[in-house]
């Protein structure tokens, strides 16, 4: 903590205290929900209605508006988890542990979405549900990495140790992701399949790009909402007999 100025570290410690964070989350959630809808509705309208059909793929390409943002999110959340794991290990910040473990199911969800939509997009394009395409393969391995995190956390009884273990695992995983990605790319060019991946970087028209970016923004805000909800649960689970939880119960009663 020594190289962080005292006022900043004090600010972090206050914000990171469970009761303070809990009320902060409650205050933030309505605003985030509004922001989410503001991004989602024009994103969906632009993507599903306004944007023209692709001249090659027809309307099937519209899966891109969820497939690509979900794939982005799956990587983004894993990197974020590793960052929080690093913070948890170095500064022993309990809130970072809570955020890390709350993020895992959401990240796994996005990875699953990226895989399923990739497969659904691939069927009309490739004529088969699954192709060992570089991106889908990397995404599948990423799903295994997420499952490793959640099952390791579930298996260790002492939750402080479990959080420590998961932080280490997330950091190891994030170092490996680029290596895995690179190796899978190389493997894919070596064993060139019968199809050429049509999902790679379509030269995208502006009317297609804007909804894509809106959807990506909407997914990011969704993540913020979902992770705050999960973190609220995890905080209570961690210390069910703390004073602030008792106060919360009295408020509810």
């Amino acid at each position: 903590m020594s190289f962080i100025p005292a006022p900043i570290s004090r600010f972090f410690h206050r914000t990171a205290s469970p009761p303070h964070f809990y009320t902060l989350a409650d205050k933030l959630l309505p605003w985030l929900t509004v922001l989410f809808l503001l991004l989602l509705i024009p994103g969906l309208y632009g993507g599903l209605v306004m944007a023209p059909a692709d001249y090659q793929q027809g309307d099937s390409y519209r899966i891109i508006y969820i497939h690509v943002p979900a794939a982005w999110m799956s990587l983004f959340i894993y990197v974020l988890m590793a960052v929080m794991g690093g913070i948890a290990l170095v500064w022993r910040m309990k809130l970072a542990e809570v955020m890390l473990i709350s993020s895992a199911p959401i990240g796994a969800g996005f990875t699953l979405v990226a895989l399923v939509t990739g497969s659904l997009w691939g069927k009309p394009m490739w004529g088969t549900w699954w192709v060992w395409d570089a991106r889908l393969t990397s995404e599948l391995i990423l799903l295994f990495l997420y499952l490793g995190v959640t099952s390791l956390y579930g298996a260790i009884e002492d939750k402080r140790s479990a959080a420590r273990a998961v932080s280490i695992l997330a950091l190891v995983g994030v170092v490996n992701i680029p290596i895995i990605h690179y190796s899978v790319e190389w493997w894919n060019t070596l064993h060139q399949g019968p199809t050429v991946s049509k999902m790679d970087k379509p030269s995208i028209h502006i009317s297609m790009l804007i909804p894509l970016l809106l959807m990506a923004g909407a997914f990011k805000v969704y993540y913020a909402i979902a992770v705050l909800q999960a973190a609220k649960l995890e905080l209570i689970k961690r210390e069910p007999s703390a004073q602030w939880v008792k106060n919360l119960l009295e408020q509810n009663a």
Partner: protein
Amino acid sequence: MSLENFFAMGGYAFYVWTSYGITLAVLLWNLFAPIVQRKQLLRQLALKQKRAQQ
């Protein structure tokens, strides 16, 4: 563009709408599962507290 055309998705309706449907299901699950669980947990804790006070 008619509504019918919109839902037909140029013949790709099954793929497009299944994708959007599954995405919706996963995202809703990840959002509401913790909310429901938290409510349950708080109810349990309240019960426990009441029992402890008696």
